[in-house]
């Protein structure tokens, strides 16, 4: 009797145990899945962009090499996440992810909106040699995705880059309409629908005024900030020859050959430089930005300026008006009529003065990776030097 009772109770418990397992699959797997499917249907734009073949191959590489084990692709509904990475990840954004790449560990930052945060040459250089760009990074280098140089990716390297550039793309492209639709359908959780899709400070967005930097001299802190964040590309002496410069087009600015106003540095540090690998540095405190600006300005050594005959200035002005003003602007402020069509904004000579040598070199050879064309064969030597002298006169510290 007792044995039978026991047997019955074990039978009931065993069935119950399997039942609870089935229940867990139902309530934590199947049912949330249906809710998420429904949410995806309501919030998704009608035709969200999927992945191309190259992007899909890149995704496989991303999975294969464990990228998701240091970089999540899931912004949580948490203030710290949203302020750092932007709007929380919606279900529809992951609808093509077989298998999911959410991740449960962040050694590096979340990448769900990484697309278009950095330039392509920055991404490739970083994959090729992370520490040449980010001094204290612990990311593995992936030279096997390249043929010996950061600007020579293999097919796999190009695929991975293509995939990285898709991250967050569908949501960006869905635009305000997509956000409005998601907001309307979000029902229970509107409080965290951040208006900022991508909060990455590295993404150059012209929003908010750059802070006025102070002309401080804090060489210790400035040198530390410069070493950690800048030296990789701009080089330890600011000559634009850091290890990370190798694969960047255009090359990083040669800080030793340019004089900058504080305002110019503040703008570049705050917004990055569009069309180049220079990211925005809004996540650094303003005091650090001021300190590093002091370091940058110290790279330019004053040198003796030769006296310039009036005739040369006059020739320079004529050549400048004929050939340079369309882009660099009549008053040298980088605001010529053609600016809107250029991928990289022309140099503003009012806030930034090249050395004579740098000015001549740029005129002769152009600047690789920018619309600045070489004028070496087109202008005479006298004209080249005249205009090189002339543009330096715009500077107004």
């Amino acid at each position: 009797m007792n044995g039978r009772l026991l047997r019955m109770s074990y039978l009931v418990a065993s069935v119950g145990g399997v039942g609870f397992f089935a229940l867990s699959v139902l309530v934590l797997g199947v049912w949330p899945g249906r809710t998420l499917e429904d949410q995806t249907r309501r919030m998704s734009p009608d035709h969200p962009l999927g992945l191309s073949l190259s992007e899909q191959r890149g995704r496989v590489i991303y999975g294969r090499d464990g990228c998701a084990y240091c970089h999540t692709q899931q912004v949580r509904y948490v203030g710290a996440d949203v302020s750092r990475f932007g709007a929380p990840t919606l279900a529809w954004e992951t609808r093509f992810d077989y298998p999911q790449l959410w991740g449960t560990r962040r050694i590096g930052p979340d990448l769900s909106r990484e697309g278009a945060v950095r330039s392509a040459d920055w991404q490739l250089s970083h994959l090729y040699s992370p520490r040449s760009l980010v001094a204290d990074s612990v990311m593995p280098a992936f030279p096997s995705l390249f043929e010996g140089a950061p600007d020579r990716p293999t097919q796999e390297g190009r695929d991975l880059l293509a995939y990285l550039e898709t991250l967050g793309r569908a949501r960006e492209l869905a635009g305000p309409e997509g956000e409005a639709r998601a907001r309307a359908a979000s029902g229970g959780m509107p409080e965290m629908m951040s208006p900022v899709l991508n909060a990455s400070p590295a993404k150059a967005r012209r929003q908010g005024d750059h802070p006025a930097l102070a002309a401080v001299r804090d060489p210790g802190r400035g040198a530390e900030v410069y070493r950690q964040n800048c030296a990789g590309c701009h080089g330890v002496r600011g000559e634009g020859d850091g290890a990370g410069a190798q694969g960047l087009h255009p090359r990083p600015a040669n800080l030793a050959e340019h004089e900058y106003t504080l305002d110019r540095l503040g703008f570049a540090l705050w917004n990055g430089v569009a069309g180049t690998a220079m990211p925005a540095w809004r996540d650094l405190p303003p005091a650090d930005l001021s300190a590093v600006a002091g370091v940058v300005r110290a790279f330019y050594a004053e040198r003796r300026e030769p006296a310039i005959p009036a005739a040369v200035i006059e020739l320079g002005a004529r050549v400048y008006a004929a050939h340079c003003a369309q882009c660099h602007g009549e008053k040298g402020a980088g605001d010529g009529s053609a600016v809107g069509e250029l991928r990289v904004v022309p140099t503003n000579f009012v806030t930034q003065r090249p050395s004579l040598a740098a000015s001549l070199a740029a005129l002769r050879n152009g600047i690789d990776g920018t619309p600045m064309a070489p004028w070496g064969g087109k202008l005479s030597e006298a004209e080249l030097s005249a205009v090189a002298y002339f543009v330096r006169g715009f500077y107004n510290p």
Partner: protein
Amino acid sequence: MDVTARPLAPSVETGLVRAHGLAAILMLFGALTFGVLASTELLVPDLAGGSVWLSWGRLRYDHTQGIMLGWLANAFFAFLYHAVPVLTGRPVTSLRLGQWLFGLWNFAVVLPGWVLVLAGFSQPLEWAEFPLVVDAFVVLSLMLAIVQFLPPFFSRGLEDLYVSSWYVIGGLVFTLLAYPMGNFVPELVPGARGAAFSGLWIHDAIGLYVTPLALAIIYFVIPAATRRPIFSHFLSMLGFWLLFFVYPLNGTHHYIFSVIPMSAQKGAIAASTILGVDVVLVVTNLLLSLRGAGIFPRDPALRFVGTSAVFYLIVSIQGSVQAQMAVNQAIHFSDWVIGHSHLAMLGFATFAAAGGLIHIWQRIPQARYNPTALNWAYWLLFAGVVVMVTDLSAAGLVEARLWGSAAPWIESVRAAAPFWMIRTLSFVPIAAGFITLLVGLVTGDRGAGLLAVEHSIGLEPVEAIAPRLAAASAAEAS
């Protein structure tokens, strides 16, 4: 039921016990090597010199899969070859089947899995990194394991099954059910929906595979080594059923504050809280059963499983607390969680597996046994676990603090560096502990283990028992 009252079953396949036991420790060295290399690469990121085979991600995959499937599974199998005949009085299904299972598990699952991951064939799914082709062999092997180990329980009748038997049956059956959830479903169900299933498996891997088999060992070794019945069979069974009811419902607590419906998240948080209470019941029962044996019993097997139970208590309470939203918000994604998982796998599970291994080794006639080395193994591993888990928990708090501030991301990487250094150094006592564990099982006098059991002498020096050993051998020879 008193396990020790039964004479040692003559049907224990000692060959398979030895084979799985040694395979377990050898694979442990493999998994340990992957882990140490990965942790060193966080200090010296260019250590691998750009070799993609040794890049951090692939090493990380092989480390956790190696611990779970190479070390723990082999140690569990070794234990089952001893425990199932002892618990049921019947032999396992077939020696031949056992040889196949051994071959499949080691040469079709773990070794090819490791190589394939290094070669770039894997799944980016936590605790499921081996590629699908290897997963197929895992499922096949799990089915064979059920055929091998469960029939003796059923042919004997379920009336007076000891709690270890329940854990063995539950562990094997539910592992087979849960494994496809994390390994196959996310390949078919995309994104957030797939993540819901991944979450289930991440927890089921520990809750329905590692925990039941580790608890089976602890429940087995304590009465066998102390020669006293467990404190309360009622608490044992209550703990068992609560565990199997509540564990699977924890999964979503890995994705709190995600887009997965809040009601599922809250359900998982509630289940996590109940689970902590259940573990308090289980461990109370275990520790009360250890009364009188001391905090550090002399028998190394008993000492390992006793400490395992304490680690289990700590890690489970930690788990309940971590699932609470206010805590989770801060420590999720940080090194705190890595500390937590090491406390579970290296503290709780590894200590149980090592204790089980030592216990069954003592009972293999003519097996070598070196209690001094095992004593060293215990203390080295204990020190290693404590240093590593404390260090990673502190690192996680620092990271969480920086992530919540306005500091640039890279600050958290810089701040973690000294903690990562200590974590890597904790490899020294841990590796030394595993080496001495192996030494303890392959050196020493033949049959010293059995003699230690018969005389309940634990750590008494071998010289003192040599005359008795000689007498026993003489008696056996005649």
